[in-house]
């Protein structure tokens, strides 16, 4: 029996170890090591911080990096503000069948590939697109309007793409809030805003945090939406990583970029967990 349990344990442990070791831990160590390598000649390398110096020394890299971070935070905040009233409505106002139908309606668009969603926004927003034609038809504008290829279009796409990941955790936490607690808040003289601030938001905090983390990660790591909807000025950091790896074939610099992106995302996730007193196990697991 004892040896049986031991064999069982080893059999269950091996896949976990292989998966995390070979696909997560070692590749990321390799990524870090490669980012510390400097090419000094054909097939000749040495260990140095040259790639990081290049990153911090070139304003384009640094500006793109910061811009990506700030825009991702903005996308996260917008997603939260837009999604919260809808989540509250579905969790508290809608009842029975209507509730499950609304919930499902929220999910359906996201079973569709991100590419299809982005394509949809392109058809709507571009110069020959639906909005432009509608505006011309209604006489509000004279010529075609280009609404694609700018930051606003990109933001619409980013918020759209990650909405589900905000709405679902919000609904889940809000549903667990007992109606009578809200009533008690009003009975004790609270008003709409104060009940929201003192009762609803603190209760929904785990949902807000896990939703925000996922949305932030998805925005930061997004490649498709900034490439297809953003303009020439909306360069996203992932596009630079892609360029170094696939176009320039400068893997060393690309690895340094990748590692910076990893550090940035870990830092912000950590800060968010820290500020709200949550743990990764509680919010994700």
């Amino acid at each position, binding site marked *: 029996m004892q040896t049986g349990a031991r064999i069982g344990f080893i059999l269950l442990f091996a896949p976990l170890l292989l998966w995390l070791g070979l696909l997560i831990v070692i590749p990321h160590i390799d990524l870090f090591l490669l980012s510390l390598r400097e090419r000094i000649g054909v097939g000749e390398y040495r260990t140095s911080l040259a790639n990081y110096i290049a990153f911090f020394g070139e304003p384009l890299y640094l500006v793109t990096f910061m811009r990506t971070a700030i825009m991702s935070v903005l996308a996260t905040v917008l997603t939260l503000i837009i999604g919260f009233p809808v989540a509250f409505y579905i969790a508290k106002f809608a009842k029975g069948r209507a509730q499950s139908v609304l919930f499902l309606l929220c999910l359906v668009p996201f*079973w569709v*590939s991100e*590419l299809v969603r982005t394509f*949809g926004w392109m058809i709507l927003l571009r110069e020959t697109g639906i909005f432009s*034609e509608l505006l011309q038809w209604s006489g509000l504008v004279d010529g075609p309007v280009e609404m694609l290829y700018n930051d606003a279009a990109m933001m619409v796409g980013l918020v759209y793409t990650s909405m589900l990941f905000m709405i679902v955790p919000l609904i889940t936490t809000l549903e667990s809030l007992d109606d009578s607690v809200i*009533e008690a808040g009003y009975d004790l003289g609270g008003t709409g805003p104060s009940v929201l601030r003192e009762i609803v938001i603190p209760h929904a905090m785990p949902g807000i945090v896990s939703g925000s983390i996922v949305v932030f990660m998805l925005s930061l790591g997004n490649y498709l939406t900034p490439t297809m909807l953003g303009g020439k000025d909306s360069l996203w950091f992932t596009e630079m990583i892609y360029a170094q790896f696939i176009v320039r074939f400068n893997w060393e610099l690309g690895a340094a970029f990748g590692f910076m992106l990893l550090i940035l995302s870990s830092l912000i996730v950590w800060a968010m967990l820290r500020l709200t007193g949550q743990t990764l*196990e509680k919010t994700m697991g």
Partner: protein
Amino acid sequence: MIPSIRQPAAFRILWKLYVALFFVYLALPLVVVSVFAFNDSLFPSLPWKGFTLEWFFGQSRPMIGVFNERPIMRALGNSAFIAVMVSALSVAVGTSNAFLFNRYQFRFRGLLYVLLLLPLVIPGIVLGISILIFSSNVANGLEDSFGWDIAALRPGLVLVILGQFSFVATIVTLVVSARLQKFDPTLEEAALNLGATRLTAVRTITLPYLMPALVGGFIVAFLMSFENFNTTLMLVGSDAPLTIAMFDRLKEGSTPLLNAVSLVLMIGSTGLALLMILFQGRKTGG
């Protein structure tokens, strides 16, 4: 919601309007993509030139339908193959992980659990490049020391499958764990008391109980793999899956062919998602 709390009627109406507007926002891109798949024009835009099914079944240029466009069908096949492999691997490893963390206490359990969740917070593109770097290192090492050239370690189907599996496995682990936690272990003990071996007990009692989660996990994994873009982009070789093939087309300019592909994809994935919901509803509700 809460009947005892009165709110101004205007406020309620505004709120309802907002929610309605929100659903319009959600539906709009998908609706236009679908509608323009049937436009008898070379561009997916207004004006409307009449209804056609040519973008699905057309045989001659310039209107070759989806089902007759070889590269697209091949990409669809690649996607399906990758998705099945990723789902099968993820369900196997995810189930094993769920049992491990549910049944055993061991050293570094907490640390390993955090490590298991990490793929969720690593940007997909970083996951892609690290696996690319690692596999190239291994491939180069093997080639230099033994003269073996292993194609599987170069960008291509195998790496795409491994790359997607690396984070889909986490999701499936969470799905299966959630159900395993609700399992009553005394049921398994009863089977053991009745003379079953440990393996038989798990096979005949626990696994059937887990079935909704296993099927659900498989479908979620399948859909995630099918629509994955970031990780795949860095690992793709010559056998591009559908998302990458469509992306390359879209960069060159769009035709309603892409709308037609999108609609086929939408119908497929919505169907799968509904299937999963029905399946789980039946198993857990009954």
